[in-house]
């Protein structure tokens, strides 16, 4: 795998150099721009030594990797990686954000490094020509010349520089002396373009409106000539004629990966592997974290004096942090495995493979990655849907993403299934869990089929068109660093909210503070049943009772609307799980406590098989995540579809839950 090897060497070179500078706002901004799979990210990692932050563009939720250049001695700057572009006239929302940013004052790059793959020069130079036409000062970096060399071809840099009228550097990442050269070229370029007039939006609009079919064909005709003139055989003399071209690398592998039988088998196997990893590999880690926080809470209470504030700190804050921390293994594993598949080039093949079945239900092969991400978290999944060019298909994808069982539902499923599964048949729990995940997908398919059959929304013709990047061995370091960034981003976004809610809930369940002198209100249980939360719970009890829950379950359910995973922690709080005598982690204690919780009025058990099955149905369908609603509004462009989504999913979930609970009870299931 030549690309993988090249990438690794580039990174190794990165380690050898010294740190030139740290991120500084006054430094010039360098943007890496290029077509998808041109090697931008490899170059980005080489320039920054994989030390980067993900930042948001002003007014946009698209994340960009931004880092200080560590290996450009002559030209300290900030380097920005951008999503792949085919053309400056965008065809999908993610491309639009990149293009818009190029003309926004605050983010406009001072210099551009345009990246093009030597093996598909004419296609990639098309974007470079557009950038030049608009007046961006740029250096052209031609990558993957080692791959080209294997076809006994090389790029004539001097000639290309002359024809394109810009500095050209062919990158062979095996030769680390290229970056100092790039740095010099960039410095000269930047010094020479300081007083230039920056391309304006008006110029861009005029450019875009003049880019018609005739002009595009004309550009390609020029670029075909350029390619012909600069891509030359390595040996040119008549005595040593160039050998015949080898077939394009990776096609042999594609015959297997896209084979009607083996291709499907590999697809199913890799998807099964990801989900197995999420369930089973994460489990010991999750138990560890759960156990750790359980003891941390206990320990804190032991060390600090017995007071209201100690409980607030231990149960409210530490317990809240524990509720976030417990998901980290699953999220990290999902991001890791998806990053691995993406970096190897497989995800594009996966998307092509499922395009036909997905198109039958009103979606697109490009919905595949967003839906798969939906199993981690609906928020990044909705952002990933921006790569779908067709507006209708994008909306339908956005609409059904919340039905994919996100990782926040996992602890709820885990708790309820642990309750339902007989001790002697633990495999039943795993089977039921798989069933729940598949059901999410099935429901999504049903909803999208219904929408695409009955929607009167205006539809553009649908297409797929996707480049399948060359297959290569992923670079572990790049995959790990990227998964780390994504997980950290998720925790930063979801974490504080979860902790705040957990804290707020603790306060609600522990205020008003009972007076110590009153003999009637001693003990935790009495505190909670006189709290504000109790009044709330009692108020909605007529709604929760048909689901089989008392007012305390209702409180936990309300809290679950902030984020689903809060439900488990809330149950632990409202049902006073700390009182349970069990040396397990928090959820272990909760589980043993659930077996003897009773309704206050009639003394019947609350958590019966029918209630738990009902709750599973509710959590599978209901849209209990207000952050998702906010993102859905933004991505779908208005409140209406987002609110329809919220009320439809939650309403259907409630009705089905009541039907399931009452139906099971009529059938004699407790």
């Amino acid at each position, binding site marked *: 795998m030549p690309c993988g090897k090249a990438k690794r060497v580039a990174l190794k070179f990165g380690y050898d150099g010294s740190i030139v500078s740290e991120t500084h706002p006054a430094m010039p901004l360098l943007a890496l721009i290029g077509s998808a799979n041109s090697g931008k990210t490899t170059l980005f990692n080489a320039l920054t030594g994989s030390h980067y932050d993900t930042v948001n563009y002003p007014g946009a939720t698209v994340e960009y990797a931004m880092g200080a250049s560590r290996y450009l001695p002559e030209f300290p700057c900030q380097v920005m990686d951008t999503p792949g572009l*085919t*053309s400056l*006239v965008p*065809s999908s929302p993610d491309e639009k954000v990149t293009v818009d940013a190029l003309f926004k004052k605050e983010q406009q790059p001072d210099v551009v490094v345009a990246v093009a*793959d030597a*093996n*598909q*020069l*004419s*296609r990639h130079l*098309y974007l470079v020509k557009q950038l030049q036409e608009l007046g961006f000062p740029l250096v052209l970096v031609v990558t993957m010349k080692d791959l080209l060399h294997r076809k006994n071809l090389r790029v004539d840099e001097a000639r290309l520089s002359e024809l394109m009228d810009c500095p050209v550097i062919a990158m062979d990442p095996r030769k680390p002396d290229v970056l100092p050269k790039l740095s010099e070229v960039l410095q000269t370029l930047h010094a020479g373009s300081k007083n230039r007039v920056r391309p304006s939006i008006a110029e861009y609009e005029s450019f875009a409106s003049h880019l018609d*079919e005739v002009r*595009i*064909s004309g550009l*390609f*005709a020029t670029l*075909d000539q350029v390619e012909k003139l600069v891509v030359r055989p390595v040996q040119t003399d008549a005595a040593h004629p160039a050998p015949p071209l080898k077939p*394009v690398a*990776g*096609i042999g592998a*594609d*015959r297997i990966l*896209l*084979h*009607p*039988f083996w*291709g*499907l088998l590999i*697809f199913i196997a890799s998807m099964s592997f990801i989900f197995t990893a999420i369930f089973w590999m994460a489990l010991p880690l999750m138990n560890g974290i759960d156990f750790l926080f359980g003891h941390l809470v206990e320990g804190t209470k032991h060390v600090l004096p017995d007071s209201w504030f100690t409980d607030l700190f231990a149960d409210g804050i530490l317990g809240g942090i524990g509720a976030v921390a417990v998901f980290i293994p699953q999220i990290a594993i999902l991001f890791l495995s998806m990053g691995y598949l993406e970096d190897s080039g497989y995800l*594009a093949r996966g998307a*092509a*493979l499922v*395009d*036909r*079945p997905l*198109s039958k239900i009103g979606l697109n*092969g490009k919905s595949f990655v967003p839906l798969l991400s939906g199993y981690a978290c609906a928020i990044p999944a909705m952002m990933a849907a921006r790569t779908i*060019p067709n507006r209708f298909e994008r909306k339908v994808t956005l609409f059904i993403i919340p039905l994919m069982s996100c990782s926040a539902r996992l602890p709820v499923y885990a708790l309820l299934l642990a309750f339902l599964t007989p001790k002697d048949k633990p495999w039943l729990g795993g089977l039921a869990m798989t069933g729940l995940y598949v059901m999410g997908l099935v429901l999504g398919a049903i909803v999208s089929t219904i929408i695409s059959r009955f929607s009167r929304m205006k539809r*553009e*013709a*649908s*297409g*797929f*068109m*996707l*480049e*399948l990047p*060359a297959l290569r061995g992923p670079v572990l370091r790049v995959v790990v660093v990227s998964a780390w960034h994504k997980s950290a981003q998720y925790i930063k976004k979801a974490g504080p909210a979860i902790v705040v809610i957990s804290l707020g809930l603790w306060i609600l369940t522990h205020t008003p503070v009972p007076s110590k002198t009153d003999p009637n209100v001693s003990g935790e249980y009495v505190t909670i049943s006189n709290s504000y939360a109790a009044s709330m719970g009692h108020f909605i009890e007529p709604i929760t009772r048909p689901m089989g829950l008392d007012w305390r379950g209702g409180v936990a359910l309300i809290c679950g609307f902030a984020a689903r995973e809060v439900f488990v922690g809330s149950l632990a709080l409202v049902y006073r799980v700390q009182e349970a005598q069990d040396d397990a982690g928090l959820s272990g204690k909760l589980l043993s406590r659930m077996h003897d919780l009773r309704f206050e009025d009639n003394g019947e058990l609350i958590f019966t098989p029918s209630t738990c099955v009902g709750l599973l149905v509710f959590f599978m369908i209901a849209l209990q995540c207000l952050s998702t609603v906010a993102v859905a509004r933004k991505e779908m462009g208005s409140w209406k579809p987002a609110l329809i989504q919220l009320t439809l999913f939650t309403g259907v979930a409630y009705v089905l839950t009541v039907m399931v609970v009452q139906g099971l009870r009529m059938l004699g299931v407790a």
Partner: protein
Amino acid sequence: MIKPMQTAQSEMTLDKLLAEMNAVVTGLEGSPVFRRRLLEVGFVEGSQVRFLMATPFGDPLVFSLRGASIALRKSEARCVKVRL
């Protein structure tokens, strides 16, 4: 001089190619949005294109164009007129 019969036989659309067949793009048809996307990806008149394989469900199809592997739905490939 080219006989009319021969022209009729060798003119076809991209979706009709058999595996491993090479062809040259002669033009595009279909909606402006499709035509534009196809052009920008590099399906311009005179381009060499090769049909590599179909995906497991028979659609999309994978083509080799200007050094890249590109997956296109049959409905998109139908917009590309080619000559063998």
